[in-house]
């Protein structure tokens, strides 16, 4: 992947934190499955939940939604 610019860096960090908090993105490397695959899968889950266009990419629509004030309970799965 091309080296991300600082702004890009922030976007990735925001997205990673969001997906980990609300969509169960696992921490750390994922062994056989490349990190970017898992990341893209989780973005798709989030886009599907919010009825955005499911692209798997961190597009503006997706980022804008990640910045909105919200509840801390995950959107999918267990909360404990």
């Amino acid at each position: 992947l091309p080296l991300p610019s600082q702004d890009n860096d922030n976007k990735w960090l925001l997205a990673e934190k969001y997906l980990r908090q609300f969509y169960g993105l696992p921490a750390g490397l994922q062994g056989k499955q490349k990190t970017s695959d898992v990341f893209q899968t989780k973005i798709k889950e989030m886009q599907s939940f919010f009825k955005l266009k499911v692209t798997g990419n961190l597009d503006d629509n997706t980022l804008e939604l990640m910045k909105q004030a919200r509840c801390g309970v995950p959107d999918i799965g267990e909360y404990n």
Partner: protein
Amino acid sequence: HFPRHLKWENNNVTFRILNYTPDLKKSDVDRAIRNALNVWTDVTPLTFKKLHEGNADIMISFGTKEHGDYNPFDGPNGLLAHAYPPGKGIGGDTHFDEDEHWTKDSSAYNLFIVAAHELGHALGMSHSTDPGALMYPVYSYASGYPLSEDDIEGIQALYGPNPDPRKVKPKPDAPNKCDPMLSFDAVTELRGETIVFKDRFYWRLHPQMPEPELTLIKSTWPSIPNKVDAAYENPEKDQVIIFSGIRMWALNGYNLVDGYPKYIHKLGLPKKIRKVDAAVHIRDTGKTLFFTDEDYWSYDEATGTMDSGYPRSIEEDFPGMDDEIDAAAYHYGYLYFFHEHTQYEYSYTSRKVIRILRTNSILNC
């Protein structure tokens, strides 16, 4: 619902408020929490008893950052609150981020609305994908009855209905943009974007956004009613005028212009006109057309007066258009009339309907 449809086995649930935010009077917090609980008792057999000591099912508290449950808050904005599904110990407990500013109105985060949402979790509801539902994860301020049909269906699936229900008026679910029978309330341009109003919502179409974005009207313009009848953009003034009933509002971008709402009769419409069905600005002539029932009016934006000789019959002046008009738009010499699930492309120059489309074809459906 949460996995395993977690719920309280006993319908008589206890709650306790452990501490209070300094943003509001203690009595305001008590009332907000009680009203939030009442939202759910109205539609279920649940009852809530307040404890002032000891361990309650639902322990309610305000805290910042790491506050004892290893699910830290994050300072202002972002995470507002969270709650745990029914269960022993931390189950049902509800925490609010004290770094937020809590209010009783729409000026900051409304405690009642956030509490009603979190208590939904404390009763076993998970998040809804319906942007108009109380259990939608993103905060938005909305006045009036907070539950949508989706919320009621969810909570009654866990606890059943209230045996003697209070009459409630749940909000209809969000419109489905690809519903073939979809009709619009109003369509306008706004600085290069297209805004489509439907029920409590509006879609925002932007050339660079792949998908129309559905948003609650009130989350963008809290003081505009939940129902828009008509809207048009006057590019010369950089204003969008929004009509609801006998009132109209002016927007400059997404900001409300001072001095509004005004009565629509200030435009020169007679008092007997109580609603504008559709409005469209014809950039080439500088005129704005207002459609009311079977008639339409022509307003000269430059002089700020209604042209004489109106109203005129829509059917006579726009051959092929013999239906009332829900919404209208104008692009490059073509008028687009929307009536129920049909869109008529009308050539202004050749004075005839040249194409018929589905209303929601502009929503990529």
